[in-house]
């Protein structure tokens, strides 16, 4: 399953703007972007790709228990991530590292999680409303819908002011479309007309299972039976991702109900560091998508607009710095005390957990010797 006649492309693989009837409604969104924001798109894509490679290396060196690469999906993620406004809430799956970075999350929180130091633990109110990762496939779709219902009940959406009205953006993948929760989220979202955008990154593989096993029809059609309008885009086109998400979010925040975007992209790397894609996919497919790399085409676009070598060199340097900084900080991470496992199981005091925490503390203390070593 690849591009269809319906696939919206704003930026061709050669890096030229596509101007036709289909793109016409979206081009004004691009026209409104200033040079600094256009640079941001590139910078974030390049930095996260470098970060991604570094994290993969650290996993191979035993510094991370797991790494989840986003290689190849930078266009879909950066465009949609920048489309959200400050007041919006974002519910990621677990591969949207750069969206978190755009919203203000220190990606070290992701590193800590995949090193085995936390289950996430960042504070969405301090990370641009970028909520925690959800590893059970598709579960977050319902949380997002409930949150969007709460926005409605609170009267902070559809007031007529798109600069302050809030909406919700939820990410998931092609595998998740088979989960019941995602369909139930469509049901609730359509029923309550939630201010919400469902953003599907169809990267064509759910670990080893091709998207054709999940659906016999293009996935962008999935929502229409629920009464939710959809658009299919070239997910490796950062501008299409930005413009369609911005439009759908504005529709949502303006009281026009939920929307659905299928971004056709490709997982260039493995599902995770535990996966070996050479066992199930062929080189031709990889080549096809390599020729549609989101960064390559966007660099061509920027160069055609007049961006010079200095900018690209600066970004490359910044990416190296971010990766180096991440390596240093990763190597400096300690291990939390065992007492952390008992903390925040509940919000209010809980006799059973408290008793077990006290027991473990006493047990560990029983090993202590005068010189501080275990006997």
């Amino acid at each position, binding site marked *: 399953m690849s591009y269809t006649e319906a696939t919206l492309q704003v930026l061709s693989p050669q890096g030229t703007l596509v101007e036709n009837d289909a793109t016409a409604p979206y081009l004004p969104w691009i026209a409104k972007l200033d040079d600094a924001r256009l640079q941001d798109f590139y910078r974030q894509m390049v930095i996260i790709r470098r970060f991604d490679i570094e994290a993969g290396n650290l996993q191979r060196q035993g510094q991370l228990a797991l790494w989840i690469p986003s290689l190849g999906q930078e266009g879909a993620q950066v465009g949609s991530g920048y489309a959200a406004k400050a007041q919006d809430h974002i519910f990621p799956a677990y591969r949207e590292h750069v969206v978190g970075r755009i919203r203000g999350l220190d990606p070290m929180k992701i590193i800590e999680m995949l090193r085995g130091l*936390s*289950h*996430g*633990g960042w*504070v*969405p*109110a301090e990370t641009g409303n970028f*909520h*925690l990762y*959800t590893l*059970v496939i598709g*579960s977050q*779709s*319902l*949380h*997002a*819908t*409930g*949150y*969007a*219902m*709460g*926005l409605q*009940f*609170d009267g902070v959406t559809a007031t007529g002011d798109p600069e302050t009205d809030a909406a919700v953006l939820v990410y998931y993948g092609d595998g998740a479309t088979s989960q*019941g*929760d995602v369909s*139930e*989220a469509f*049901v*609730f979202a359509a*029923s309550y007309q939630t201010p919400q955008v469902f953003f599907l990154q169809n990267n064509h593989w759910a670990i080893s299972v091709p998207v054709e096993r999940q659906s016999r029809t293009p996935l962008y059609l999935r929502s229409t039976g629920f009464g939710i309008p959809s658009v299919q885009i070239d997910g490796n086109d950062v501008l299409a991702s930005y413009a369609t998400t911005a439009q759908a979010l504005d529709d949502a925040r303006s009281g026009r109900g939920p929307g659905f975007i299928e971004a056709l992209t490709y997982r260039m790397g493995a599902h995770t560091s535990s996966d070996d894609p050479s066992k199930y996919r062929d080189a031709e497919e990889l080549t096809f998508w390599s020729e549609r790399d989101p960064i390559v085409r966007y660099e061509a676009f920027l160069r055609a607009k007049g961006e010079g070598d200095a900018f690209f060199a600066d970004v490359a340097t910044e990416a190296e710095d971010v990766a180096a900084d991440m390596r240093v900080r990763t190597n400096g991470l300690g291990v939390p005390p065992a007492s952390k496992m008992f*903390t*925040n*199981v*509940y*919000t*209010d005091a*809980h*006799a*059973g*957990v408290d008793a077990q925490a006290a027991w473990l503390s006493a047990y560990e203390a029983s090993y202590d010797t005068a010189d501080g070593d275990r006997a």
Partner: protein
Amino acid sequence: MTAAKTKTAPAAKTPPAAKTPPATKSAAPVVPAVESLTLAKAINSGLRAAMAADPKVLMMGEDIGTLGGVFTVTDGLKAEFGDKRVLDTPLAESGIIGTAIGLAMRGYRPVCEIQFDGFIYPGFDQITSQLAKLTYRHEGSQSFPVVIRVPYGGHIGAVEHHQESPEAYFAHTAGLRVISPATPHDGYWMIQEAIASNDPVMFFEPKSRYWQRGDVDRGASGIELHRSRVIRTGTEVTVVGHGAMVSVLLQAAEIAAGEGTSLEVIDLRSLSPIDYEPILASVQKTGRLIVAQEAPGNVSVGSEIAATVAERAFYSLEAPVLRVSGFDTPFPPAKLEGAYLPDADRVLEAVDRSLAY
């Protein structure tokens, strides 16, 4: 002693009301401070009080709005508070729990009704993998005060999936609190305390007791949420249960008393955490313990109590802790439920075995 000669149905009378101080007139100016209510009406009254006290409290579920719930527990709430606070949701349990989680993130305190016990499993993943673990995942920056009301248990002659007792699944899951009221007084108070809790609470309502009356004292609950309570004192054998089983235990105690045996009855009230102190104190006095439940015995709340009492009161025990429970079968067709569900005779049979040691 011997078991009662004839099989006995669960007692129609409600257990004695809690020993609470009489309420003052000022405590409840509109309704009498102490009023006789059915369990269903008492929970309804508690829900109404919670909704009136906190605008963030929402009701969600299937048929809970216009219809007022299939057991009428939410009767009248939609008319009083509107359809933005009493939501007749689409028919999807995972959707109900999952969206309640999102609403909790937004600062709401959703109260979800699962229509019948056996329909909770479509929502099981959202309850156990999400709701129960999200406070932990957030490292405490976000609380999830969601209450899930579950009419549970047998005695109503209903079809498959309508008479089950699934509480052990949830008591096994860290992050959840699990409670079950046996009386209208506890129904009124415990539902409000569950809603006030900052943690997820599974609230198991003994549906066979919905229509039994009891005095509700609106002045004071008289006991903390997670405390178990001795509701009949005795000297020879301690019997423990929750929900609908409590009335069976009281009935058994009455029969046993007539035959000269003194049972001490404890209403568990909280299944997670379990309040062991009253149980241990009782066992230290009687030396014998029987744990009764409608749920299957295998890997159950009763199993956990038996193991814990064996660990913590071994030298007080004169006999092994015995379990009286549903059998390790699916809940049978309704015409067989009389043989499946523990009644006073099954409890007394266990009393005999305990005393024979």
